[in-house]
């Protein structure tokens, strides 16, 4: 059952063209020159009830703009979007009862009153029945370790504490869809793990659909099985997380430990045999060799060749983790990625 659908969704921003410095700014007062910046371009996808989807993309890729269109905060410039069967920008108030949203570092709790008071306010605004509230409140407070924060005004909380409270506030009414825009920003490692576990449990128990953007890709691997990759507003990949890792990380590294360094002739013969495969050999020490294969299919041949030429004491095969794939993608390689079908 689809809960989110975007069809040819685009959003552009207009910004005034300004020169630099005082004179440039002054000149812009008398000029109407505007620049149109595409934030999201022609994006189409659908998300089913209960799915957990990670949005990946570097800063400015359009992730937050996309979430704002899905929640109705922004209207698309063109294309169509439906969330829980309604057009979000047109029916935002009704939709808000069924969704929860966290926008990292943008607090939604009242700044000057104790956190517990803010939760009571949310209970009133979302009309959460007492029985549901008691259950979700106690569970959220316990799971996110909020107990001793409830009497503290939001302004006195640390960034990490505030993020936890914001997350709790967004999920207190057990929403059908949770939009989480960098929800673990500023959290320490242990709390991040608690948050991830909480999201997994929530999804399992309530069938909550999760749309998550983050720069900590462990959040994605822990909570999502599907990723959407955005690059400069365009959807470059839509598919499973494992598929993404497989498709965009063909490279494998074989680490070889040898009993003693091979002779020069053996080393040369070994290198000559592997040369046609395009592998890279990197002797990191006399007894430690790092072999980078451009394709996983070459690994068996590389391994058997190594076994024939070298006295191997240990052998390890490494696939790149998602962080290194995405880091490389952000740097330059995104152009190589195939567009989504």
């Amino acid at each position, binding site marked *: *059952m689809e809960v989110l659908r975007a069809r040819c969704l685009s959003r552009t921003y207009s910004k005034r063209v300004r020169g630099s410095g005082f004179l440039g700014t002054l000149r812009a007062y008398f000029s109407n020159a505007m620049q149109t910046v595409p934030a999201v371009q022609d994006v189409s996808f659908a998300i089913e009830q209960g799915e957990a989807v990670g949005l990946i993309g570097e800063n400015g890729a359009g992730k937050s703009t996309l979430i704002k269109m899905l929640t109705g*905060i922004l209207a698309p410039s063109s294309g169509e979007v439906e969330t*829980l069967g309604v057009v979000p920008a047109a029916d*935002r*108030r*009704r939709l808000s009862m069924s969704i929860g949203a966290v926008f990292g570092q943008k607090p*939604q709790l*009242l700044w000057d009153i104790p956190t517990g008071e803010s939760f009571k306010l949310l209970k009133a605004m*979302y009309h959460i029945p007492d029985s549901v509230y008691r259950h979700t409140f106690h569970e959220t407070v316990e799971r996110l370790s909020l107990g001793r924060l409830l009497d503290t005004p939001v302004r006195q909380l640390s960034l990490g504490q505030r993020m936890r409270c914001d997350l709790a506030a967004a999920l207190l009414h057990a929403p059908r869809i949770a939009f989480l825009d960098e929800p673990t920003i500023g959290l320490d490692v242990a709390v991040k793990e608690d948050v991830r576990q909480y999201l997994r449990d929530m999804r399992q128990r309530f069938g909550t659909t999760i749309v998550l953007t983050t720069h900590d890709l462990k959040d994605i691997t822990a909570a999502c099985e599907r990723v959407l990759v955005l690059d400069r507003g365009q959807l470059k990949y839509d598919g499973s997380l494992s598929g993404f890792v497989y498709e965009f990380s063909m490279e494998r590294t074989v680490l070889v430990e040898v009993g003693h360094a091979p002779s020069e002739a053996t080393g040369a013969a070994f290198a000559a045999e592997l040369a046609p495969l395009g592998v890279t050999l990197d002797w990191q020490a006399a007894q430690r060799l790092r072999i980078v294969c451009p394709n996983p299919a070459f690994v068996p041949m590389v391994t058997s060749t190594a076994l024939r030429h070298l006295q191997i004491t240990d052998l390890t095969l490494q696939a790149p983790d998602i962080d290194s794939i995405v880091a490389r993608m952000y740097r330059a390689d995104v152009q190589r990625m195939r567009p989504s079908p």
Partner: protein
Amino acid sequence: MTALALPPPSFIQLLFGFISLAEKTAASKLAYRFASFISILTNTLGYCIFLLVWREVYRQGTAVSVPRAEIFPYLLLAFLVNGILTLGVEARFNQRLRTGAITSDLLQPLGFVNFQMAQGVGDAMANSAFVLPVYVVGWCFLGPAVLPASFASAAIGGLSLVLAFLINFGLSFFVIQACCVLHSAYGVISMRLALHQVFSGLSAPIVLFPEPLHSLAKWLPFRHIVETPASIWLGQVAGARLPQLLATQVAWALVLLITSQLLARSLVRFRQVQGG
């Protein structure tokens, strides 16, 4: 595609959320004890200086068409009404727009207008606590002239104050729409404050304004935010003029609120949210 799980909230549910938000906003505004004390003190001092200036005007024998016995209670009431209705709607919105925190305001189940209005009510509740001591001080100096002329004056004055709140909020919401389009609305907010300062009757009753300012003030909504409720409370409005003024207040409140809502809907396509 699945249908929405929750039905839209009922009026009673909305009202409950509205009152709760207003109460929390008021509590939030009163959270700083020292700031609250300073606020009361400066309000009182400001009013005293204001009265001294007017006392000097009368002492010098300047011809003023409003009798001395009427003007001082009026100025006190104008000061109080303005104090109560100094809402933080624009300032709060502008600040949240600049930081991008407005995103969460736009997703509140009360709806954006109600969410802003409830906070405005909270502001007015907190402001009332600030200006009440000024009223007591004024009463000590000016005597029963500052009290409502009758029970009816008090009741209708109260009603007029509610309508004044709606007009003021309508104007604030209008300014907010400008914020959405202009991204930073210091200019618009300054203009609105300047017009309010001049044309609301805060510094002097509008009857004292020279032409064409006097005629202009009559056609603007600002006088109905301060002068109208203050005058009605003091019983300075009588006969057919009373329902006429109330009807004008209702008309301005409706026009501003409806226009702002329509504007908000039509501007949704142009809205931009800053800060990622």
